[in-house]
């Protein structure tokens, strides 16, 4: 009997949720009050304007950069999944082209990639998509990536840079990042860029105009960040990329002791007059899938707007933000973000306070701060690390974690966690197979102690299975 009730309740929940999703997607860019209400409407979907994109001016070049940049990190595959997690699958070039067309049509003009993305196939796909347009219609941002030590030599680095030009079918790069500085500390930075003369080479390329803007993207050890900013007079950074959103603003360090609060990073760059690129605007989707009650707080304020849109508006309200990179796999992501920023409605003081309250509550959930960036993958022992964290976070967000076997919903929560985990992650790739070799730890830009968090999940599963919680 009670089982039946639960099922019915679930059904209602499901129906409610899907209705809400439908409502939101049908509202489209509902927060724009440009159109007069003309009585009854057959569809609530409004067209996204093609001439309302918010632009920022690059102080050095005077270029007009769209505040929304297209990140080619999570491209769609032919099976309609993100190529980031499904490296074996072919990238759906046709869809990439279609998304690019739609973006450009709506005024987006900055495209970001890296030789490492989508297992090395992102730049190639971008080259195909963008070369169909005149070169002055768009700006290319790519990186000198540094994940594999065998690419750290001078020759190898130059080869990587040259290959980027080739793959992207271009004569010059608009924005070139030193990729992920801070991972590995100052020592690694010195080895990677200074001692082998790679930075000198890049500075030379900038002088000669093949790199229009030179900057860095930062994760990890804040000493490296400070070192680079302190030496701004020497290297003249044209931009810098940091992780920023309304949660990371004050809580990056709290979520993860090896990170630094975005407030500090942003303010330091702004003092030095270095324009800022933003990555992880929605923390790999976690700020789009907030815990239910937090999402409701935002929806109550503006029912038509997506939860994700709040983060974009909040970030874009900062004047020194040149562009926000978002890895948009599907058309609905692109549409939602375009409608948020075409044009931008800046956050009010009151809205900032609301988001601060949401952030306060958000960090008090025991989520794993994984953005599913996949840098840790592949795990040499086959563990699906991001998949495991994502399932755990999903259960936390949706309130399906039990504290004790006495909990009212223990049986239901147990089923959801265990069955859901088997559905999401192959049994051979679950947390229990982590041997704690620690190879992944240094790859994680969020500095997550991956083996110990996986062990926590494994312990929780063991308790669920034995019903000894």
């Amino acid at each position: 009997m009670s089982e039946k009730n639960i099922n019915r309740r679930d059904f209602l929940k499901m129906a409610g949720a899907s209705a809400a999703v439908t409502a939101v997607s049908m509202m489209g860019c509902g927060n724009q009050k440009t159109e007069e209400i003309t009585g009854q409407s057959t569809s609530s979907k409004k067209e996204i304007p093609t001439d309302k994109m918010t632009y920022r001016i690059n102080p050095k070049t005077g270029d007009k950069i769209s505040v929304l940049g297209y990140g080619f990190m999570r491209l769609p595959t032919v099976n309609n999944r993100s190529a980031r997690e499904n490296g074996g699958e072919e990238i759906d070039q046709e869809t990439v082209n279609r998304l690019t067309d739609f973006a450009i049509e709506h005024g987006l003009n900055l495209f970001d990639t890296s030789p490492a993305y989508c297992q090395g196939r992102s730049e190639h796909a971008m080259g195909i998509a963008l070369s169909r347009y005149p070169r002055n219609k768009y700006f290319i941002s790519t990186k000198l990536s540094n994940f594999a030590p065998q690419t750290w030599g001078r020759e190898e680095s130059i080869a990587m840079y040259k290959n980027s030009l080739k793959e992207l079918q271009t004569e010059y790069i608009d924005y070139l990042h030193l990729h992920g500085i801070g991972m590995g500390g100052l020592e690694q930075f010195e080895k990677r860029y200074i001692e082998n003369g790679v930075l000198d080479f890049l500075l030379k390329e900038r002088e000669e105009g093949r790199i229009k803007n030179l900057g860095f993207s930062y994760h990890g050890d804040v000493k490296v960040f400070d070192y680079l900013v302190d030496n701004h007079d020497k290297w003249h950074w044209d931009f810098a990329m940091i992780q920023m959103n309304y949660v990371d603003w004050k809580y990056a360090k709290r979520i993860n002791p090896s990170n630094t609060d975005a407030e500090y990073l942003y303010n330091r760059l702004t003092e030095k007059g270095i324009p800022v690129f933003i990555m992880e605007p929605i923390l790999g989707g976690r700020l789009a899938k907030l815990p239910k009650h937090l999402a409701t707080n935002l929806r109550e304020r503006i029912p038509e707007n997506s939860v994700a849109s709040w983060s974009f508006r909040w970030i874009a309200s900062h004047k020194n933000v040149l562009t926000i990179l978002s890895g948009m796999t599907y058309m609905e992501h692109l549409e939602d973000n375009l409608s948020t920023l075409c044009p931008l409605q800046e956050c009010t003081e009151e809205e900032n306070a609301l988001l601060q309250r949401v952030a306060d509550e958000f960090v008090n959930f025991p989520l794993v701060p994984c953005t599913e960036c996949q840098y840790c993958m592949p795990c040499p022992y086959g563990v699906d690390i991001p998949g495991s964290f994502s399932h755990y976070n999903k259960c936390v967000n949706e309130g399906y974690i039990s504290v004790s076997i006495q909990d009212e919903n223990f049986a239901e929560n147990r089923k959801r966690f265990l069955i859901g985990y088997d559905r999401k992650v192959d049994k051979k790739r679950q947390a229990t197979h982590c041997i704690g070799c620690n190879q992944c730890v240094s790859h994680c830009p969020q500095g997550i102690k991956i083996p110990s968090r996986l062990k926590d999940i494994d312990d929780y599963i063991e308790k669920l299975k034995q019903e000894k919680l």
Partner: protein
Amino acid sequence: MLKKIRFVLALLFWAGITLMFLDFSGTLKCFLGWMAKIQFLPAILALNIGAVLFVLALTLLFGRLYCSIICPMGVFQDFVSRIAGKFKKRRFKFSPEKRKTRLIILGIFVVLLVAFSPIAALIAPYSAYGRMISSIFQPLYMLVNNLLAKAAEHYDSYAFYGVDVWLKSGATLGVALVTFLVVTIWSWKKGRGYCNTVCPVGTVLGLLSTKSLYKIKIDADKCVNCGLCEKNCKAEAVDFKAHTVDYSRCVACMNCIEICKKDAISFTKNAVQKSSAQKTDKPSDSALRKTLATGALLAVSGALKAQEKQFDGGFAVIEDKKIPARDCPVKPAGSRSLRNFSSHCTACQLCVTQCPNNVLRPSSKIENFMQPEMSFELGYCRPECTRCSEVCPTGAIEKITKEEKTSIRAGHAVWIKANCLSVNDGVKCGNCASHCPSGAITMVKLPENPSVEVPAVDSERCLGCGACEHLCPARPFAAIYVEGNEVHGDM
């Protein structure tokens, strides 16, 4: 009427047992476990006196009702025969009993059962039926379930969950297919031919049923010698010309009573067969009902008895694990010893169908052919699970509790240095030690290289659950594997 009662009961028993073999979730066994435990041969092997006496009493009272109602293989053949009857009506003809053949087969069966049970089990009706369902039909059932699970996933429902479908033993599947074909074809053509020629249980009960209290009787006075009864007797036991029934083969299905247009056939107390006309009083209906009720009561108490009796005893490619060469097979906790297990198990596969961790599978080795054994490529014997011990009807795996399981040493882990990643790859591992549920594994420094830590197994504390073997990252052969204990020790 009697036929209908027989039919309904048979349907219930057959559906119950079949569903139990199909149901991998282990829910039905809680309600239907007793249906397996009153199967004749398993009950004898388990020394389940209550169930054995019940079957014997039932047979002495009413003839081979067991074969018509309780035996799933018998009912299955009736279904086949019934379908065949749609194509060719009135197709049976009385044939004399092949008593010699039956007794010889029974004799060989008994000898084999004592000496070498896996081969004897080939013709044991209940276990042969179990193998058919578990090897052929459970995988199909699981595939359908997996479709439903996919659909459920789509709708974010958790009503169904996906399960692994894998070939547990090719040899056993082969045996099951042959059994299925032989039994199906035989029953299509000859009704209960298998039961009345080969089946050892049929032969034993046939010997008793000649002495049963109630029997089918043909009233020669009313009989007009139309032959309908003979043509419809699937046991080919009715001789309408002589007005006799061969009670050693009659399974008391009551079909002849139903078909007789002259009411000349009845199920009567103490029927004495005479080929000449002889009037007997029709048994009062109420007396018959009373006897049936007693039988039903007996059935219930037999079933209860059967239940009580239990207490006596961007992924890296992952290479599939391979089965290590074990000197001694690992048998589930509750089986006490290899010998106890081998001499009781009829290889019905009920435990295999119930194992939720993909540990149990039929052996392909000749010395314990088709009898289940454990291996840990797809999972390990989890501490909270005692399902196989709950369902086993033969006493090969005796009922144990979770608490008892934590002290039964079914095997012991053995470390293979040559495969160990800590030694070979220089990584810090210890996954076996950190997952050992009994804490039998400790990581110790390798004497020749103290920077390397390797597992050391305390065999006295090892349960043989296979967690270490399953979770060992060395592939295809794990660096730590379980050897069975010939006699399961206590901790």
